[in-house]
């Protein structure tokens, strides 16, 4: 009879509390997160000829295209830095952010099958997706480093500043922002499939509101500049370029706003995700 009065170790109730995060439980499933990451890497390029080379082909070729179109044909200013390096420095972080966002936004739809059959903390899936993207980014950043060294030793106009050391902070911020936006969309796509279409389209528009293919300084100092810099991704790309190429400056104020936006989005995302995850199987 003693046992009966004891509290149960798990109690399943109709509603989650608003902020019932249960990070401890997510931590218990850390092996699963890691296995998901491994799975994503192992299966991504199975049965392809180039295999892992695909990791760097994507940023390399899109950067070449940007260099040709925006650099050579349109002749946009790159603040005096080598244009290929300039576009690569913007493109690599942008690719990281956009894939993190897009892949997490598909969480519920792509995993509906597994989620419908077995329980594990649902946050495990988007977290493992973002970790996969971070590793992807590090590989692609390796490519950037190689290219950077080539330019540096050939005496091109590049200079390393102390702000290059901010890179880890930038990675964390992009991961959190992509994750936050991604899970908000994933929670909404359980009911509204429009957002799935909107994401692909929206992300490519978002890129043009971010100084990836142009410099922030080319926008002047007016309203347009302020508007673009309010986009939380803009200061990140700017700091990246300032740190590694020595062009532009660090927009401290906008970076602060960018962090504030990141944290608010993350917070909102977790709340919405939490609210949806329990019963999403009934609506998906």
């Amino acid at each position, binding site marked *: *009879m003693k*046992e*009966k009065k*004891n509290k*149960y*170790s*798990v*109690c*399943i*109730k*109709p*509603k*989650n509390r608003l902020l019932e995060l249960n990070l401890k439980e997510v931590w*218990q*499933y850390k*092996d*699963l997160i*890691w*296995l*998901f990451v*491994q*799975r994503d890497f*192992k*299966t991504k390029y*199975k049965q392809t000829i180039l295999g892992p080379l695909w990791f760097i082909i994507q940023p390399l070729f899109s950067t070449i295209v940007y260099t040709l179109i925006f650099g050579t044909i349109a002749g946009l200013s790159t603040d005096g830095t080598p244009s290929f390096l300039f576009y690569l420095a913007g493109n690599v972080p942008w690719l990281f952010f956009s894939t993190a966002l897009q892949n997490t936004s598909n969480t519920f739809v792509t995993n509906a*099958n*597994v*989620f*419908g*059959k*077995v*329980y*594990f903390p649902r946050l495990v899936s988007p977290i493992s997706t973002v970790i996969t993207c971070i590793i992807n980014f590090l590989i692609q950043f390796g490519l950037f480093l190689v290219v950077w060294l080539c330019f540096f030793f050939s005496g091109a106009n590049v200079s390393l500043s102390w702000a290059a050391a901010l890179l880890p902070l930038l990675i964390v911020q992009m991961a959190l922002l992509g994750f936050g936006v991604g899970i908000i969309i994933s929670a909404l796509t359980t*009911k*509204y*499939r*429009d*957002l799935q279409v909107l994401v692909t389209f929206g992300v490519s528009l978002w890129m043009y509101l971010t100084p990836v293919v142009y410099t922030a300084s080319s926008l002047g100092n007016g309203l347009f500049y302020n508007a673009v810099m309010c986009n939380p991704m803009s200061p990140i790309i700017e700091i990246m370029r300032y740190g590694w190429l020595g062009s532009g400056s660090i927009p401290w104020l906008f970076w602060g706003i960018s962090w504030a936006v990141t944290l608010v989005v993350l917070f909102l995302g977790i709340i919405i995700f939490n609210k949806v995850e*329990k*019963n999403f*199987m*009934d*609506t998906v």
Partner: protein
Amino acid sequence: MDSEKDVILKISNLKKRYRLGVIGGGTLMADIQSWWARIRKKEDPNAKIGAKTYGKNETFMALDGIDLTVYKGERLGIIGHNGAGKSTLLKLLSRVTGPTEGEIGLNGRISSMLEVGTGFNPELTGRENIYLNGAILGMTKAEVDKKIDQIIEFSECSKFIDTPVKRYSSGMYVKLAFAVAAHLDSEILVMDEVLAVGDMKFQQKCLNKMSEVSKEEGRTILYVSHNMSTIRQLCSRCVVMDHGKIVFDGEVEKAIEKYLDIVSNEAPYLNLENEPRLSLNEGIKVHLLETAYVDRDNIRFSKKEKQVVRLKWKNEADVSNLCLRIEVLKRDRTPVATAMLYDFYAGKNGDCGTVCVEIDVSTLIPGQYTTIYTMFQKDSKGSTVNLDNVNGLSFEIVQEDDDIVWDERNWGSIRLPDLKIK
């Protein structure tokens, strides 16, 4: 219930409500349109023409107030017709979806196998999938490491363990998936008919493994199935569900009877004239009219008693070399034994006949039985032609006080005459 046992799972007043009809328009735009139309009290532009409009209150209770307490080490079977709410209950237990009302309290980890091989990735090898599937089901990597050899051995796939599972046969796939689940450490194991897929030998192996973990390690198993023989083999207790409610909770055999909805006929007399016929190819040639146990007012027999059955019939054609067969079946209609009487009658069309036969049931174990009476003729090749075929009287063999309790699961349904020393 024994109150000293530990409660491992307690469900109180559990309800799950589903809304009928289409949920939302499916697109944000359509939802906004519908909402705008409702505000202006106009017709919903997205409602299908002629479709029944479901109001907000038109809902469907998949589970309608379930109360259930499960004790440690129990093997609980859950049976019920399709739509009774079995799978919804398992879904709530495995936290795939949340309840509308009520509460579930668990003591310990719960692992669910609502499907075999959840999360298996076809590109990964068997070994990699063991780790992945194990982690999805709640094991840590270290736990899988400890058990990987056992799992591979149990799966009978050791030769193919480093081959991608997309090259596996479906049988191997299932075996591997089940092997992982069978080695979980969780205190509660939830299974939804997953055994139905393997071959008989592997099914048996799984059932034995399940019984073993439950008996030796005191783990609790909740098992849903439509296969009564696996329920019989595995479960120590059984609940029957119907329309979202538990309608029976208790002994396995009683639950199966309840589920199969067997109405027992207690009368020692039956009018057979208008009963439905079972399997007749050429119509009734010998029409059985009535049957009765001679000189009895009940259907309970001790095994020492001889049953005497009287049958009356009317010939619908000229017959000769008439034979009688009495098939004895269990209440769920599993055949147990058959007795015959050969060439006992010949007669003209329109005649009536009567026969009294004695059946020796001393080899049947205690329990409830039903019978089928068949009038037939042998043809020259030794096969039979049925002339009439109808459900007959039921009877019960009573357990005698001084007799040992028969372990039917392992000993079978026939007790041969006792051994003699020679």
